[in-house]
């Protein structure tokens, strides 16, 4: 209905292959990013930053990473929390052990370590598929849980692996107010989202999807499963690692291994499923959903004046999550992102039916 595409003809492949070929979409996206950068900092409250926006941004990043692995390359992973932990702790170690280590570099290197770790645990995926692989990644998760709890060296000999980072200095900019943190994360998210999008619409992305959709055919046209899968694991766990580092450094500030336990892994998997497998956009939807839902559930009764103890609320949250996962898997396996794109199609074809 809002689309007017007459006259938007493409005279070059570059124009035809851009991320948003339809002008209206381009404008919308620019508007959203602009609002996020310029408008939000003015209107959002400290609580909103701490409880909503910052977690949302970081988890979107993690979900984005996971989505590359699960959604695009079809390799299921239940070890995401572990990869985040590796990112967080290695970034921490770099920061505290090497003095003068710039925070941003530490975070990125954290990603690199996560990447190495991820590739290591990705190797089984060359031999084993689907369900078996799920278990393999669980191994990664438990190994991390254990390692950061028991191996003192990894946590700079802090008790029970709980660590905390000194103030975050980025090129002389002390990232401490919620707004700073928000903008800091936003920067990461925008850059990584853009790069991820470029990857998935490039030939690496096509190789991933080929492996996901029909691995035998992929092999026959010369795609090396080894390379495709491991590159997916690498990119995915790099992003996840960076997200982990941000989660620790920016969101938590001080944390212990439990912050990255298996529940985190599942949450991220849920984000990806609900948000939309194989969709960058979906990662954001999923993250937003999972971040907001519990808060709503906590507050909803109060809004209606029905007092409800937090335990019950959390149990309810569990149930609703579970139900939603099943619902989405049945009703819309491609998640919110698909709903979104269907809605878009409807608008384009309006008044005709889809």
């Amino acid at each position, binding site marked *: 209905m809002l689309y007017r595409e007459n006259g938007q003809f493409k005279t070059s492949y570059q124009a035809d292959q851009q991320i948003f070929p339809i002008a209206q979409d381009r404008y919308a996206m620019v508007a959203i990013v602009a609002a996020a950068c310029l408008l939000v900092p003015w209107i959002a409250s400290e609580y909103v930053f701490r409880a909503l926006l910052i977690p949302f941004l970081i988890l979107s990043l993690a979900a984005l990473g996971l989505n590359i692995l699960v959604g695009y390359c*079809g390799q*299921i992973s239940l070890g995401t929390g572990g990869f985040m932990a590796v990112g967080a702790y290695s970034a921490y170690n770099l920061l505290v052990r090497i003095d003068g280590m710039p925070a941003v570099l530490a975070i990125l290197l954290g990603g690199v370590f996560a990447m190495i770790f991820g590739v290591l645990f990705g190797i*089984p995926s060359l*031999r*084993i*598929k*689907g*369900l*078996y692989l*799920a*278990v*393999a990644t*669980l*191994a990664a998760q*438990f*190994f991390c*849980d*254990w390692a950061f*709890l*028991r*191996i*003192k060296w990894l946590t700079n000999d802090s008790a029970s692996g709980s660590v905390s980072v000194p103030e975050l200095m980025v090129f002389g900019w002390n990232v401490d107010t919620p707004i700073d943190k928000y903008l800091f994360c936003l920067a990461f998210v925008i850059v990584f989202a853009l790069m991820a999008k470029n990857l998935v619409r490039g030939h690496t992305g096509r190789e991933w999807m080929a492996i996901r959709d029909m*691995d*035998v*055919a992929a092999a026959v046209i010369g795609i090396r499963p080894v390379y495709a899968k491991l590159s997916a694991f690498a990119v995915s766990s790099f992003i996840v690692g960076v997200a982990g580092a941000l989660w620790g450094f920016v969101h938590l500030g001080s944390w212990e291994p439990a912050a990255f336990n*298996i529940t985190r892994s*599942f949450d991220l*998997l*849920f984000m990806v*499923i609900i948000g939309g497998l194989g969709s960058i956009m979906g990662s954001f939807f999923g993250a937003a959903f999972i971040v907001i839902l519990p808060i709503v559930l906590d507050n909803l009764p109060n809004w209606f004046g029905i007092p409800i103890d937090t*335990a*019950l609320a959390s*149990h*309810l*949250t*569990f*149930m*609703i*999550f*579970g*139900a*939603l*996962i*099943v619902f989405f*898997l*049945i009703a819309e*396996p491609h998640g919110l992102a698909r709903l979104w794109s269907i809605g878009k199609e409807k608008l384009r074809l309006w008044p005709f039916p889809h």
Partner: protein
Amino acid sequence: MGPFLETLIGGLMTGMLYSLVALGFVLIYKASGVFNFAQGAMVLFAALAMARFAEWIPAWLHLEHKVLINLIAFLLAMGVMVALAWLVERLVLGKLVNQEGVALLMATLGITYFMDGFGQTVFGSDIYKIDVGLPKEPMFLFDDVFQGGILVNQEELSAALIAALLVALLAAFFQYTGTGRALRAVADDHQAAQSIGIPLGRIWVIVWSVAGFVALVAGIIWGSKLGVQFSLSQVALKALPVVILGGLTSVPGAIVGGLIIGVGEKLSEIYIGPFLGGGIEIWFAYALALLFLLVRPQGLFGEKIIDRV
């Protein structure tokens, strides 16, 4: 020598319990191709139901007789599990027929969350006790063979025996009963099974009920050992490597795998743990399974997978 044997036997006994849970996985996987992540949640749920019913029944029926109470509670809990199986088939699996494995796995993750939440909402989330009168006091074996003999926890022993019995039963059930064969048929090929008139839906209800039964028994045993609490649902995570090791589709695999893992993790904890800072059994099991996978992707007894083009 003694300590080693003690650990070995201890391992074997825990292994038996792992096998029990693993069996749940295998049953469901064989019949519906679903990798049932919710097995652990089922254990917790069943245990919770059992424990709480056992508490409530005296209040309801003014009963004193312990065995009777436990029996009723057991039946009720079983009923709950059957109902659960039916719902799962109705609301979830029935709607996900012919989806690929990963999707189903995620679905069971959803079920897990739901059951954890639901169970704790209904039955509460504290720690509860189950007492079905398993003998507690330890006993000594082979004290004549060498001095000191071997300390064996009777409770674990009897648990292991129950488990073994159950495993044997199920194996037999699969091999010799019509239903069992039907189950296998379904597992091998859904379409074919349907075409020869095996009602998929009912089969799945049955198999999930059986799995529920297994979970209940496991829940009771673990529950009476450790007390019924949320962490029970983690038992499943321990049983996963067992399945991998044994092969997803093989009952004997589940048994052998369970024993291997049980023994393996106990021994490793004793003999390797100290050097690594302890607490390694959880990931050690996985590492074991993983290494094994690389050699034999389909597990000990699993069938080989061939992609047809």
